[in-house]
């Protein structure tokens, strides 16, 4: 059981992106972050994932009601985003080995579901953008993390890919806290709650 | 204000002492008077570098932007002083050793310090505007700061030098009379005060500039 508590987050770049933002999301819940381009969706997601520090405020992780040290937050997070590229000189399986450690049965199965099995030993530089997006999603789900941060998970996916994405989301939702930064109506609908940045 | 006044008085005093009061050194003659300028300049160059390094370290620890302002200002002053050190040193070298540049270990170390400052400012120019600029600058400065003892003290001693002893020590032997030591000490104090005042001014300029930018 994980709870992500954000309190009084503020961040400014060239302009104020958000100020005094607080929310709390626990296992089994989901939060959508919406807003126009440049409104700070990705920034907020990075702050939630602990890879960026806010100007003020903080994000605290609680695992079974015990606080998690910031140095270990990484272990609780699966993260897929357009700005997190996978290694194009490695194959899908090698990317998984690098990120997760091993390729187990779940990994093989997931690659199969995502339709990547025939190409799992091909370097990603020969993949299409849609296939690379599937690899990124596979990596995020395979980590079996308690918190899932997805930035525009449906981008570059075809209809079948999106169906797979939602079935995967439905499957992990009961055991996972999900954050999705998106403007896609379908993905917004999936989340029970949402924040709109402006 | 009081510091500026005090520094003015000490400066005047040291000028009087350097040019009128103190007798010329035995072998070096009248040219020895440059030592009272050259050594304090070199001292401030090193001091400014150390202050910049320590300010960068404090920035990493407390991540307050003020420290970066101090580091940058100190480095600016240090660059200026190390250029002056090289100029006064090579003038003196021309008179004493016959040529402007001799690759004496001390000369080499001050040049390296100058190179470090130049590298630091190139980095600063390139990263300006980058949100990571303060971090990158301070990390570089700390690395340089850690490497500098090797630069200034260790390396020159490891290989055969032009001179039996570093310049300052050689001078120390010549300046056995207390008068000269006293003048050098006063001059050092006055230049350190000057550095302190300049640092304050520079920091204020930075702060005002960044305020102007915000408006």
């Amino acid at each position, binding site marked *: 059981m994980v709870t992500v508590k954000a309190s009084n987050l503020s961040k400014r770049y060239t302009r104020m992106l958000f100020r005094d933002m607080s929310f709390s999301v626990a296992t089994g819940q989901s939060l959508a972050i919406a807003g126009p381009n440049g409104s700070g969706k990705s920034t907020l997601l990075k702050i939630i994932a602990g890879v960026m520090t806010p100007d003020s405020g903080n994000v605290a992780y609680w695992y079974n009601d015990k606080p998690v040290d910031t140095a270990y937050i990484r272990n609780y*997070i699966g993260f897929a985003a357009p700005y997190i590229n996978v290694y194009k000189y490695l194959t899908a399986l090698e990317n998984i080995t690098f990120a997760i450690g091993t390729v187990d049965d779940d990994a093989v199965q997931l690659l199969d579901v995502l339709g990547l099995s025939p190409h799992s030993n091909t370097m990603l530089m020969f993949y299409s953008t849609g296939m690379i997006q599937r690899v990124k999603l596979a990596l995020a789900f395979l980590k079996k993390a308690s918190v899932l941060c997805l930035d525009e998970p449906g981008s570059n996916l075809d209809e079948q890919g999106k169906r797979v994405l939602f079935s995967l989301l439905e499957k992990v939702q009961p055991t996972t806290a999900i954050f999705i930064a998106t403007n896609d109506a379908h993905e917004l609908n999936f989340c029970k709650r949402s924040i709109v940045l402006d | 204000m009081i510091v500026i006044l005090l520094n003015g008085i000490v400066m005047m005093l040291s000028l009087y002492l350097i040019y009128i009061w103190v007798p010329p050194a035995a072998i070096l003659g009248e040219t020895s008077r440059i030592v009272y300028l050259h050594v304090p300049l070199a001292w401030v160059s090193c001091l400014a570098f150390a202050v910049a390094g320590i300010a960068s370290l404090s920035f990493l620890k407390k991540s307050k932007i003020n420290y970066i302002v101090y580091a940058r200002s100190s480095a600016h002053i240090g660059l200026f002083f190390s250029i002056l050190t090289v100029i006064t040193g090579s003038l003196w070298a021309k008179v004493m050793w016959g040529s402007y540049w001799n690759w004496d270990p001390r000369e080499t170390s001050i040049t390296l310090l100058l190179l470090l400052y130049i590298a630091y400012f190139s980095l600063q120019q390139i990263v300006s505007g980058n949100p990571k600029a303060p971090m990158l600058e301070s990390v570089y400065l700390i*690395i340089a700061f850690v490497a500098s003892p090797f630069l200034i003290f260790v*390396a020159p001693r490891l290989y055969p030098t032009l001179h039996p002893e570093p310049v300052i020590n050689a001078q120390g032997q010549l300046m056995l009379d207390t008068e000269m030591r006293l003048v050098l000490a006063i001059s050092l104090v006055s230049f350190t005060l000057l550095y302190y005042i300049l640092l304050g001014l520079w920091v204020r300029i930075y702060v005002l500039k960044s305020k102007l930018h915000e408006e």
Partner: protein
Amino acid sequence: MIKALWRNIQKDILIEFRSRIIVSIVLSFSVIVTISIGFATGGIINSPLLHAAILWIIIFFSGMNTLSHVFFREIEESTALFGVIHYPAVVIYLSKLLINCCVMVVIAIMVIIIYVFVISVSVYHGIYLIAILIAGSLSLAFATTVIGAIAALAGARGGLFTILAFPVVLPLFTVAIQSTARCFEQQVFSPLSAIIFLLAFSMVLGMVSYLLFPYIWREF
């Protein structure tokens, strides 16, 4: 920790071998420069000091191509965050450091072999020479790996890394050149103090870099 380190190194080695940048550019750079110096001088250089200086300049500039490359690759392909969300920054630093060490030693060994082959130089203290080359190239890697990261994060390929690295590595450079020169002379000497200097230099800078790296390798 060891496992994580190994996975990072394995990944980097695979990528480097497949992209062939280090292999093709860096190694051929050192070969071409060495051969062209032999070509230009007709293979005759009389001063041991000059031999040593040329040797280290070749090693330094070959190193300049590779030492920051491992970081530039991550930044340019935006894979840096991929590494950061799976591994602590220090693991990434150590893996890059180890790779740089290996590449530098390979470069140094290769350069000396070609150098001795194309330029007539008499090596009187072969084992000392190898020891100094290894110690020197290791400390080059230790001293400049974090500077490579700085250059990569500053987004300036090309000159910046050399400008930043040169003043920092100059002390090790001078010591390495001085002691390498002695290897080309007949006189007996002990390279121990030089090697200790080089290793101490790399230990100190390596330790500081280890502590500093997590401050810059984040927030992508």
